[in-house]
């Protein structure tokens, strides 16, 4: 039997909830349904048009529901359909979208609903990540405690001035003011306020960290025929990849993990990108702590090693810069953990569909969505374009 070429995959519907600290007005089922209904409306489709559902979220301990896809089958119209539940830590939102895209690329299904969520108000994320287990390294009082030493290592290695992190936070929080779905809308934000905020895990300040959000993000993915019927411009998937490496071992570079480099290289190869800095118009990057912007700029090949912070400092990553990073406000402004990766993927798609509203990057034709998780060991990325891929 011959190997058929992959079916092109298009994003034709996107729906988000307004992300907030606590959605006391809806159940978990109500939250996910809100995003799914918006995505269906955006695609001009109904539940009957969906062949399969792929759902993702971060650990079940955050809501205290084991394998919630079972309980959510009804709310997501999945009864009688296939339903898959992906969990790859913080990268899960991205991985979930890629698993859904593969179902179409493999021609197993034609139209798939993919959704990721977190209702963090049901518990306390910091302590949900800090359950001690004998003989295993705990995550050291939440994610900030784990990542702060690696930020410090980046600063030492590159000689970056300690002002760069606050520039990222100031930018992302201002971008969030243009995004109606963003959690944090700090209308009185100033750079001085960011720099004066309390130090949490040195060198990470309070205003340089992500919030805890309730929220969900959904996308409708479809094949070429489905895209042709779409009422709004589709975003085409030009490349997508996942890479993983071990959590802890002597050779691991926590500042710029090899898995991240390899994942980006695979996506660029698929998309025919040879110079990401020039050929990509916008990046939605998983930046839960501000310093990860310059770190990932290098890891993803947008800057040479040691040079990422210079792009940030020069304003290249501003909304009106040469390479806008997180025009939506990013994870720093909105962090329903399990959904955060999918929001990155969805916001990249919004950009190339020209549907990003006030935070639209003028003329964006190719955009990247990026997610990572675990101890910076899991990576998921995709590159979407306004035009159908040539191959």
């Amino acid at each position, binding site marked *: 039997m011959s190997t058929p070429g992959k079916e092109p995959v298009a994003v034709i519907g996107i729906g988000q909830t307004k992300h907030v600290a606590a959605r006391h007005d809806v159940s978990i089922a109500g939250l996910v349904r809100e995003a799914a209904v918006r995505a269906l409306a955006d695609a001009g489709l109904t539940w009957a048009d969906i062949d399969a559902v792929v759902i993702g979220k971060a650990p079940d*301990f955050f*809501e205290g*529901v084991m394998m919630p896809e*079972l309980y959510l089958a009804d709310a997501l119209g999945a009864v009688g359909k*296939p339903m898959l539940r*992906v969990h790859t830590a913080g990268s899960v939102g991205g991985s979930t979208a890629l698993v859904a895209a593969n179902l179409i690329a493999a021609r197993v299904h034609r139209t798939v609903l993919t959704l990721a969520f977190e209702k963090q108000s049901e518990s306390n994320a910091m302590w949900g990540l800090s359950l001690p287990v004998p003989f295993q390294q705990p995550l050291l009082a939440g994610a900030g405690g784990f990542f702060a030493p690696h930020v410090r290592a980046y600063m030492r290695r590159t000689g970056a001035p300690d002002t760069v992190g606050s520039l990222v936070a100031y930018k992302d929080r201002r971008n969030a003011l243009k995004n109606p779905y963003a959690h944090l809308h700090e209308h009185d934000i100033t750079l001085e306020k960011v720099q004066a905020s309390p130090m949490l895990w040195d060198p990470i300040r309070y205003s340089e960290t992500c919030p805890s959000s309730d929220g969900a993000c959904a996308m409708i993915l479809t094949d070429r025929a489905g895209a042709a019927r779409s009422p709004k411009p589709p975003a085409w998937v030009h490349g997508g990849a996942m890479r993983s490496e071990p959590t802890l071992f002597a050779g691991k570079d926590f500042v710029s993990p090899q898995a991240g480099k390899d994942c980006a290289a695979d996506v660029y190869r698929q998309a025919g990108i040879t110079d990401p800095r020039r050929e990509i118009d916008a990046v939605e990057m998983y930046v839960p702590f501000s310093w990860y912007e310059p770190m990932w700029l290098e890891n993803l090949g947008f800057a040479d090693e040691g040079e990422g912070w210079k792009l940030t400092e020069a304003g290249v990553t501003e909304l009106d810069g040469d390479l806008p990073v997180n025009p939506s406000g990013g994870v720093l402004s909105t962090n329903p953990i399990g959904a955060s990766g999918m929001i990155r993927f969805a916001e990249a798609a919004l950009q190339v569909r020209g549907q990003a509203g006030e935070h639209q990057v003028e003329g964006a034709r190719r955009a990247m969505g990026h997610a990572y998780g675990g101890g910076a060991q899991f990576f998921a990325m995709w590159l979407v374009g306004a035009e159908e891929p040539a191959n």
Partner: protein
Amino acid sequence: MARARASREVAVVAFAQSDHLRRTDELSEVEMVMPVLHRVLAQTGLKAGEIGFTCSGSSDYLAGRAFSFTMTLDGVGAWPPISESHVEMDGAWALYEAWVKIQTGEADTALVYAYGKSSPGSVRDVLTRQLDPYYVAPLWPDSVALAALQAQALIDAGETDEEALAAIGARSRADATGNPHAQLSGAVPQGDYQVRPLRTGDCPPIGDGAAAVILAAGDTARALCARPAWITGIDHRIEAHSLGLRDLTDSPSTRLAAERAGVFDAPVDTAELHAPFSAQEVVLRKALGLGDAVRVNPSGGALAANPVMAAGLIRIGEAAARIHRGESDRAVAHATSGPCLQQNLVAVLEGERA
């Protein structure tokens, strides 16, 4: 209906599992998984770095900590970095994700593994956390009680009786004497009622275990295995969560998945069914249309060993191993998730005839 069938030939070429034990206090999950991974790789001669895609299935709730699978990945030896994913489901669904990945043409081989340790906690209590968190889970109805509701519904409908259920338990454990990995085998007493009408012998043993499978496409599969177990169809379906919305004596999701996977196109000689409770075998036999000529659960099935999150993948592995050994030509493998068979996966495996 042809869309659920493989457009690319993919086979199970190797299968390994741990011995399933009531407790493994001295082993971490990594230590439990690693020997199984080494054994399955050794069967093919492949190294971790030569595998095109890796996917695992497990549950944080069994491990008692968030992101438990991040540590287990260390057992794979993911260096240089690998293309890898994880489902918070039984490993049978990890196998499905891997099968899809191979269908895209992006990988020719896949390593799939799953594991679960039930011994650190009370799995009956843990599984109540799968239920609707607002209206049902606060009442803590446990997995045995829910299975008993299903069993009673079957008895009330005249589809089985306690004697027939006892015979299923006895047959499973007698068959398990030929399975060195089984937790319970031989003449196991039917025991007292756990929750009426289910007795101890109608319920699965609680235990720890792991399993792994290697998939390969086309000629790669032929090169790695003398008689590959070709996955000629695979599909899975979910039903409503609320027990009040379902007819517990039937499994329409199993039937639909079976249709899509091509089970009914030709007779099967073997069925490996993930039926943790004896009465569930009755439901699944009906949904899959299995006659008396079909060998059901020659491994002993989940009544002989039920490592949660691996038991479904083991059904696929056991069915495939039977094809590898020439004991089956066309087998159906089934995995389930959720209370009272809410979600079901069905795969058809075939060996090339001599």
